């Protein structure tokens, strides 16, 4: 309590007594002193309440939660609590991380597991759509065993081995525990753990400064290193091969569980045997396998799409096979036909898809016309160059063309030997002798063509001779119409000659009419003789008609002057006219 004291300059000599001063002060500032005492008492009271505040604060907060005070309390604390939390995170980050680690770890793991499950589902969808032989084999195995396809794929593709597991104290880099697969070479675990920690710090300091980035994994060839970070300890796992994602989750779980027990372990004391066993490679692999097996199985792969696909593929293959066989048969038939065609040398058949064919080859101009499209179901195009064939048939056609052989000449080629046979003009024969040997492909020539005669002239000559000789064949009678003995032979001769002459007349453009003429000797009256000439002419006409001579009539009495012929007989003569065209 402050008291009013006299200044060094006041009351410098013998001063008043203390009671006097008190009385004087009371007179001067008595009212203020009273107010001052009251304020001091209030301050003392407030001091006491402030000292009691920590003890009363929990009760006061609880009281404030009742009724409407709850919302007001939350509103009042919102700002300071936010600021306090922010300051705590900035200044004591490690404590916050340590506190939240058991909570954040499972949450993150769950989120990652869900994301991975979706990823695997997508991957499964992609793999399921593949039609590789291996994929089909795995799909059949999944179908046969009822195991999801994705699991079969994982089983066949993910082979790994956990070589070493290090539980490393995060701060010092010392090994808290180390487990290795049997049969591996002994190694300096402390040195490796130390270097791993140092490299992790180096990486963090070099590239992850200012963030929570750490060395989480590394890969060298087929070896994978996983480093799982914990607040107090890290778990390093050296793996050979491709580990399943479930293993990482198992390691995270192990690390979290170990952290809950690390508080009971002294520095450098490691962990107890139970947790040590849980880090053994075989235990971890088993746990990872169980985790994979316990993951929710997908609905078994529907079988009907596979059956449908297989049927479709089978049908497609059958159709393709049949179509291919039919196509090949057509091509082979075309090839055989073209190869057998004289004068065409087939060099190839090009296929333009299954829509058209292009036949390539060499074609002799003297060959028979080639119809490449005959019998084909698709358009066939011919692409041919010229050449000279030595095929006998083509040589024969060539010889026929070059020699201009008349129809009476037969052209035959056998083994390259040209044979000419028949009749032809002497001039043609001479030209054939001159040119035949020069025909391409002809190895030798055999010409047996005889010079031809003028058939028409011969016929005309023979006709004229017959026309002249027939009247000279006389049928004689003993009397009236009684023929002499042996007259039948004469009549037959006349009939033969008449028929031949009639036949020859057709070839020389003549039209012939036969006229039977009767004759008589001197005795008798003229009328009787005329009647006898007529009767004898009719007798001969009838006899010739009976023997197949056409166009015969008996001559009238006045048609011919037969007075000079004094003979009881009859003869035949021809009346000729030019045939009508």
């Amino acid at each position, binding site marked *: 309590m402050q008291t009013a004291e006299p200044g060094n300059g006041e009351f410098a000599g013998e001063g008043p007594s203390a009671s006097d001063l008190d009385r004087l002060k009371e007179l001067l500032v008595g009212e203020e002193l009273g107010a001052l005492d009251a304020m001091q008492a209030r301050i003392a009271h407030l001091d006491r309440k402030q000292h009691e505040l920590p003890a009363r604060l929990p009760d006061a907060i609880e009281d404030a939660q009742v009724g409407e005070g709850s919302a007001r309390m939350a509103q009042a604390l919102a700002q300071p609590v936010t600021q306090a939390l922010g300051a705590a995170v900035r200044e004591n980050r490690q404590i916050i991380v340590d506190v939240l680690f058991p909570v954040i770890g499972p949450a993150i793991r769950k989120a990652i597991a869900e994301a991975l499950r979706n990823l695997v589902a997508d991957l499964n969808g992609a793999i399921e759509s593949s039609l590789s032989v291996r994929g089909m084999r795995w799909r059949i195995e999944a179908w046969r065993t009822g195991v999801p396809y994705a699991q079969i794929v994982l089983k066949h593709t993910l082979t790994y081995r956990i070589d070493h597991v290090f539980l490393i104290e995060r701060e010092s880099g010392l090994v808290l525990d180390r487990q290795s697969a049997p049969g591996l070479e002994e190694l300096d675990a*402390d040195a490796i753990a130390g270097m791993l920690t140092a490299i992790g710090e180096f990486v963090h300091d070099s590239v992850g400064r200012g963030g929570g980035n750490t060395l989480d994994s590394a890969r060298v060839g087929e070896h994978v290193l996983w480093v799982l970070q914990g607040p107090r300890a890290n778990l390093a796992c050296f793996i050979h091969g491709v580990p399943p994602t479930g293993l990482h989750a198992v390691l995270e779980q192990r690390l979290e569980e170990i952290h809950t027990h690390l508080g009971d372990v002294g520095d450098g004391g490691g962990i107890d045997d139970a947790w040590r066993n849980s880090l053994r490679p075989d235990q971890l692999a088993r746990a990872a396998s169980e985790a994979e097996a316990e993951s929710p199985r997908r609905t078994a792969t529907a079988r009907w799409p596979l059956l449908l696909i297989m049927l479709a593929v089978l049908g497609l293959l059958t159709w393709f096979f049949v179509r291919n066989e039919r196509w090949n048969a057509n091509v082979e038939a075309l090839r055989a036909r073209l190869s057998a065609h004289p004068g065409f040398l087939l060099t190839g058949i090009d296929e333009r898809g299954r829509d058209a064919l292009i036949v390539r080859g060499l074609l002799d101009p003297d060959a028979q016309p080639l119809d490449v499209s005959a019998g084909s179901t698709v358009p066939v195009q011919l692409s041919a160059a010229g050449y000279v064939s030595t095929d006998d048939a083509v040589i024969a056609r060539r010889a026929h063309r070059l020699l201009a052989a008349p129809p009476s000449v037969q052209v035959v080629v056998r083994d390259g030997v040209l044979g000419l046979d028949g009749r032809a003009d002497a001039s043609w024969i001479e030209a054939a002798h001159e040119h035949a040997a020069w025909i391409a492909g002809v190895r030798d020539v055999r010409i047996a063509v005889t010079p031809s005669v003028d058939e028409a002239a011969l016929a005309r000559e023979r006709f004229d001779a017959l026309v002249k000789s027939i009247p000279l064949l006389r049928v004689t009678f003993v009397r009236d119409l009684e023929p002499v003995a042996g007259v039948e032979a004469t009549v037959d001769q006349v009939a033969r000659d008449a028929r031949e002459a009639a036949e020859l007349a057709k070839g020389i453009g003549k039209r012939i009419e036969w006229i039977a003429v009767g004759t008589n000797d001197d005795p008798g009256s003229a009328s009787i003789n005329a009647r006898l000439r007529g009767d004898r002419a009719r007798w001969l006409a009838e006899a010739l008609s009976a023997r197949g001579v056409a166009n015969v009539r008996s001559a009238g009495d006045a048609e011919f002057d037969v007075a000079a012929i004094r003979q009881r007989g009859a003869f035949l003569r021809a009346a000729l006219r030019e045939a009508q065209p």
Partner: protein
Amino acid sequence: MSAAARKLCMLGDFGVGKTSLVSRFVRSTFSEKYLTTVGVKVDSKEIALPGRAPCKLVIWDIAGRSHLDALNMTYLRGASALLLVADGTRERSLHSALNLLMQSRSLLPDAVVVVAVNKIDLVEQWEVAPTALVELRRTLPVFETSARTGEGVEAAFAEIATRLAA
């Protein structure tokens, strides 16, 4: 159960012989190239102590420099012991070692500290005065060592192991 492992950090100026001392003491697992890349090389060795359980020293050979940067400080974390190495032929290296000790004290207040003044085989060239060593021995255990001959090396590491096991 295997020996308890304790972390020992080697501190000292460049060229004082830290790596040589470690090489003399252990058969290294890792190449020295890590000193120039990562800045540290880690080895370990188990030391038998008479009448006591063996002690395994995990030795962090930190690249030599006269002051500690942030990365070196992270390397020091969790260390139970420090071996300060100085070159007897360079008095300044002893000052650097003591300076490094002062810097590391904030991070490792309770660490066991031993001083190795190296290159005793070149004692005729020493700049470090014997009186200075006498003065230093009043506060810290000091060993005169030679990585070349091996003199004092085992003793220095054994002293650390003994103090750690105490």
